[in-house]
């Protein structure tokens, strides 16, 4: 039997089905006991929705002139496997009263599928299309106002860059570059009150201590006070300073130019 109507199932067995489909769900907002979406049922529920509901509640389930938004519906949010929407449809005027239990169940899965998708839509599986700039303008900025060509070259470190990563990563990488393992590092020079200055990659710094990796590979820790001079050099500082300079148009043009470096 592919599907069962809940009405046809003995109460105890129906309870078992209910427990199987409504489970504890950790790691998300809302109640811990959530309806587990049966995607096949949700697909069938979409057809039920299209036949009976779409004219009033809209193609996107977000309501229309004749019916409310069902993603925001308190009745739907409280529903589990049709136990709220089924009775509600029987009470409300202009609603289908003769849906089978299985149709109600399918509809429930479809509506909860929409709710779950909405509640998590701060994340996306579809990367935004950030490739909207002008290549020539990006090149001009690269060689001009941005002074990017001071450190980078389209035939050197950036040769083929557009083939190595995606446009959105290009955008993120030049705006917010991070120090690569084994590449350039933040460097610090510590000059103690007595003794020679020591320079090396910065390991840790706060107001009281600074540590660096010495030439021998060992970490050296220095207590900071007024007599200890500490100079930090961040090779990416120029990128951070540019954040105040870029317009969004500049940003989009640079992405287009860097992406064109095949």
């Amino acid at each position, binding site marked *: 039997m592919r599907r069962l109507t809940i009405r046809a199932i003995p109460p105890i067995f129906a309870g078992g089905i209910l427990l199987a489909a409504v489970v504890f769900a*950790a790691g*998300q*907002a809302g*109640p811990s006991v959530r309806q587990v979406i049966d995607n096949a049922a949700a697909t069938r529920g979409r057809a039920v929705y299209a036949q009976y509901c779409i004219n009033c509640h809209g193609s996107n389930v977000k309501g229309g002139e004749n019916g409310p*938004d069902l993603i925001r519906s308190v009745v739907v949010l409280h529903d589990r496997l049709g136990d709220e929407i089924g009775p509600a449809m029987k009470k409300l005027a202009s609603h289908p009263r003769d849906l089978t239990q299985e149709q109600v169940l399918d509809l429930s899965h479809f509506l909860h599928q929409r709710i779950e998708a909405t509640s998590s839509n701060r994340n*996306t599986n579809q990367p*935004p299309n950030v490739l909207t700039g002008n290549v020539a303008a990006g090149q001009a900025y690269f060689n001009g106002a941005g002074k990017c060509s001071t450190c980078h070259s389209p035939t050197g470190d950036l040769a083929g860059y557009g083939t190595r990563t995606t446009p959105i990563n290009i955008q993120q990488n030049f705006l917010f570059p991070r120090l690569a393992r084994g590449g350039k590092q933040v460097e610090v020079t510590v000059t103690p009150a007595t003794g020679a200055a020591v320079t090396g990659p910065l390991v840790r710094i706060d107001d009281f201590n600074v540590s660096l990796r010495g030439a021998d590979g060992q970490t050296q820790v220095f207590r900071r006070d007024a007599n200890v001079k500490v100079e930090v050099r961040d090779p990416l500082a120029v990128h951070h300073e540019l954040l105040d300079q870029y317009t*969004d148009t500049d940003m989009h043009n640079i992405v287009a130019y860097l992406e064109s470096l095949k």
Partner: protein
Amino acid sequence: MKGMKIPGILIGTLLLTAVLLAQTTVDWPMVNGDYSGRHFSLLKRINSSNVNNLTQGWTWRANPGNGPVAGGGATSATIKGTPIVVNGVMYTTIPDHVWAVDARTGRELWHFSWKSKGGWHIGNRGAAVLGSTLYVETPDCNLIALNIADGKERWHTEICDLEQFYYGSVAPTIVKNHVIVGVSGDDLDIPGYVEAHDPETGKLQWRWYTYPNPNDPEAKTWPSVEAMMHGGGMTWGPSAYDPELNLYYFGTGNPQPVIAGRGREGSNLYTESIIALNPDTGKLVWYFQASPHDTHDWDAIEAPILFDGEVNGQPRKLLAQASRNGWFFVLDRTNGKNILSTEFVKTNWTKGVDAKGQPIPDPKKEPQFNGALVSPNQGGAVNWPPPSYSPDTGLFYVNATRAFSVYYLYDTDDKPEGWGGNDRGGWSESMLEAIDYKTGKIRWIHKWPATPAIRSGLLSTAGNLLFAGDNASNLIAFDPKDGSILWHAELRSNLSNTPITYELDGVQYLAVAAGDTIYTFK
């Protein structure tokens, strides 16, 4: 028996109010220290001349047990609620858990654990005590009353609908015979509200939604009643109260949908606003909107701080807020009129301020399909950790962050819902600032050497001290007048909320929560 309890509550209320008004308390009886929200203590046994002699006292570590945590969010025992100290007992919280600890020794007196039905477990901001009862919210939308003698439950009542994805995290505030609570949650498009409960029974007294009545002029700041009534504005931050004016102050959170603003054109009142209510009726008295039509998740829930000051030679009752959007506001707290609006970190999202002193958002810096480079980022120039104001220096102290990120719009629907976008990436630098409330000028600034954003609250004292945490696990005492460092102690993790101070047996204690541990110094 009931006749015996009511006078007890009233006596407790009167005593608490008297203590708060006099501000001579040796306790730390509410998460903000007192109703003003200043995070300023009159205690000065620990002061700038002897702070170097501070030594570590007792420590206490939260152990909630190994049971499963229902719902989402962090499941660690990080103490994000500022502890309170009443009559020699410290009360501290994490989601679903409350502990009473002997404030002299750190000995655990009792532990209350709540069996959760879900909700975000991102943090609990603390508890409130009135008389012999402690009040705390749970992630699964309950307000619980506990007997402070033994931690046994007296009652609980539902304050929000878990099924609509609300959750509870807010520290309740006691005002007279009202237990006032706020609510959290922005995964779906639901309205925010605050409500008051009877301290004896838990019965609902009033509820105020963070949207206007449909016939009010402010309703025209929404395109439709439906958008307005699903427009967010959660009330998850700290509050303040002026007993003389009988006004209750708090900030409201982001509008919904959070990032995708299409479908909610207008300024979206009363989201991201500073609100003054009558605490007896729940009626709105005034509002000031910190971020009209926000699309960056910049909740304006940061602590509203009350103090009396002087503006243009005239004494004024003031309210100040350093808001998540990077702007510092000073208002007349009697009527909400703006006195000062200025950036406390450089931002790039406004086109100035309007006649009311409210920032005007630049539409170009709303999230875009191909990205908009925005400062501050979603985490904000500040977030929930409280700032401090010292009446001795007249300076407002805030741990500020300057940050950039790119805001993307994902939802292409004519009626977006939920979030519909997000920000990504970022660079930031953090600094401790002292702001002159009269001018908005930064009097002094201490830039933190390491780069991640700081999430530590602040405490200033009459002992000429300002306590802060950095992002290298240090608890630091500054001279509040000039920002020079006077003392520090290295903890095992960063401060996870705000230093407090209290006095017992003639000894002043400094206490901080860092991760799952409370440290004391004396």
